[in-house]
């Protein structure tokens, strides 16, 4: 990986302190991290470890209070304004008054694409998430898994190179989640996007990622960064291999080390 020329996210000494009525809360502390183009990076850790906050800082939904962060060599604000990333939230957050098709065209309308271009993009992205044929359904007529796929299609529709996903499958059952994980990997291989993926599931993180960032709370910080040795082609049963289990064990150790501070 040639990190100097194709760095997507680069954080140095990044910190964020929320001022609350109970006094300041250190949500992120001294995070140094570089994410290269085409990587699939998972952020894992218990709640309060700052993994979602870090994603929100990349997305310019939170402002850091210390350190610096650059997205494609720009400030997060400039990156957001240039529509550098697509963001998938914990819930699908589809607009119930719009059909699936019109939900996917929402970012395209805001960005001022022509009707024809919108049509073409919707067709392509709905194909990508296997939702062809559901264009005219309303979100509440679809299952939770389909809704989340539609929200991924919406994030993909404007072709940003960076995809930020905040526990997108957290609310879904395990079978649906396995299926969507497989589809997400397939999609990543086909589009060569950079993906930052927040999760609290160890198997999910190991199965999906090229790199796993282990975080721990109070203050939120990075305790370990694990390079995955798994091949790019990953059938679901790779999760039974010793290699997979070894990485999972390392992630678990990292999480435990983070926890030992409190008790």
């Amino acid at each position: 990986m040639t990190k100097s020329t194709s760095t997507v996210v680069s954080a140095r000494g990044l910190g964020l302190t929320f001022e609350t009525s109970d006094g300041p809360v250190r949500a992120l502390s001294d995070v140094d991290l570089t994410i290269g183009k085409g990587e699939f990076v998972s952020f894992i850790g218990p709640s309060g470890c700052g993994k979602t906050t870090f994603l929100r800082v990349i997305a310019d939904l939170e402002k850091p209070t210390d350190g610096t962060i650059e997205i494609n060599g720009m400030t997060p604000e400039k990156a957001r304004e240039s529509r550098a990333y697509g963001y998938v939230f914990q819930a699908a957050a589809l607009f119930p008054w719009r059909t699936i098709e019109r939900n996917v065209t929402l970012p395209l309308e805001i960005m001022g694409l022509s009707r024809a271009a919108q049509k073409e993009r919707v067709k392509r992205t709905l194909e990508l998430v296997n939702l062809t044929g559901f264009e005219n359904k309303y979100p509440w007529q679809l299952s939770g898994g389909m809704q989340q796929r539609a929200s991924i299609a919406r994030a993909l529709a404007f072709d940003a190179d960076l995809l930020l996903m905040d526990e997108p499958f957290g609310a879904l059952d395990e079978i649906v989640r396995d299926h969507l994980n497989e589809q997400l990997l397939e999609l990543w291989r086909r589009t060569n996007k950079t993906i930052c993926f927040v999760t609290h599931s160890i198997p999910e993180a190991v199965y999906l990622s090229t790199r796993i960032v282990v975080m721990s709370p109070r203050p939120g910080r990075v305790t370990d960064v694990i390079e995955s040795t798994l091949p790019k082609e990953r059938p679901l049963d790779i999760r039974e291999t010793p290699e997979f289990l070894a990485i999972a064990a390392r992630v678990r150790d990292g999480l435990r080390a983070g926890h030992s501070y409190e008790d």
Partner: protein
Amino acid sequence: MTRLGLSWQALAALVLCIGAAFGLPLFDSQPGTSVATTVEIFALILAAIVFSAGSGFRPTSVFLLFASAHSAAWLLISALAGNEGTARLSYFALLAATWLLAWRTVSVLSHLRPVTAQGRTFVRLAIPLLFGVWILILWEAIVRGAGVSAIILPPPSAIAARIVTSLPMLAADVNQTIFKSALTGYIIGGSAGFLVAILADRIAFFRRGLLPIGNMMSALPIIGVAPIMVTWFGPDWPSKAGVVVVMTFFPMLVNTVTGLTASGHMERDLMRTYASSYWQTLFKLRLPAAAPFIFNALKINSTLALIGAIVAEFFTTPVVGMGFRISTEIGLLRVDMAWAEIAVAALAGSVFYGVIALIERATTFWHPSIRGG
């Protein structure tokens, strides 16, 4: 009793019938009713009791029950002609019996489970319709049977007759009060409330300064400004529309301001990730999310506008308008005309409300309260 399969309504109707038979005749006065009519009424009520028996209901038996009970009620009301104010206890016993059988009809209807969509619609409409009709039947029969003075409460038939004979006058009043005063005020007040809500949302200065004053103003008895409006805009409809503007402004302001905060954090963050402008977020997210609140204000305002326009006419006004008519006709003891205006106002108000409710259903079809779940 249970062996006969009689409901308690039918049983009570039977007891009332027997009691009425011992208390004949129906009226104290001459000419009273013919023997044939009296027999016919008894026969219809007994037939209805028979039709109401049993537990498995078919549409035909429900229809026969309905037809016999209501024919009996119709004969009872017809028998009143020339006998006003002389009805005896036996008359009211028979009236109560028909009412109980109509009750039975409604309760049987509400247990029917029609298979077709038309059948379901029919049952859904028939039940409230029967309910309303019976309010009129009892009103008519009791007021005329007991001889209540027309100044206290005229019977519905007199009010209906007054409506039919006064159509041009009613049309002029509706035009003045509803189409000129209420509708103009409703549109101006609602739009102004809506625009000020957006202004308050956009500019912090307005939000901090105007909204507390708005809340205070909405607590004022606004109808009190009606005489002031007359000094500002003259006695004709603009001053009434002014009252309606003041009345409808605040519900729309408060509801829209609340509605604009109804969209979720996640949805607003989503718009932010698209670098969406204030106006884009407003039109694509916040206003659609606020629609249920805005429609709520439109519905509240539809009744407020009518009340405001009518009551404002109790003060200085030209010689046309529903409020003017009600206050002057009551003064002339022509109570039926006042009731005619009230009936027309109720009808117009229901239509007004219904149209808005229909638009709401079409616009906010996505909201859980409308799609049902």
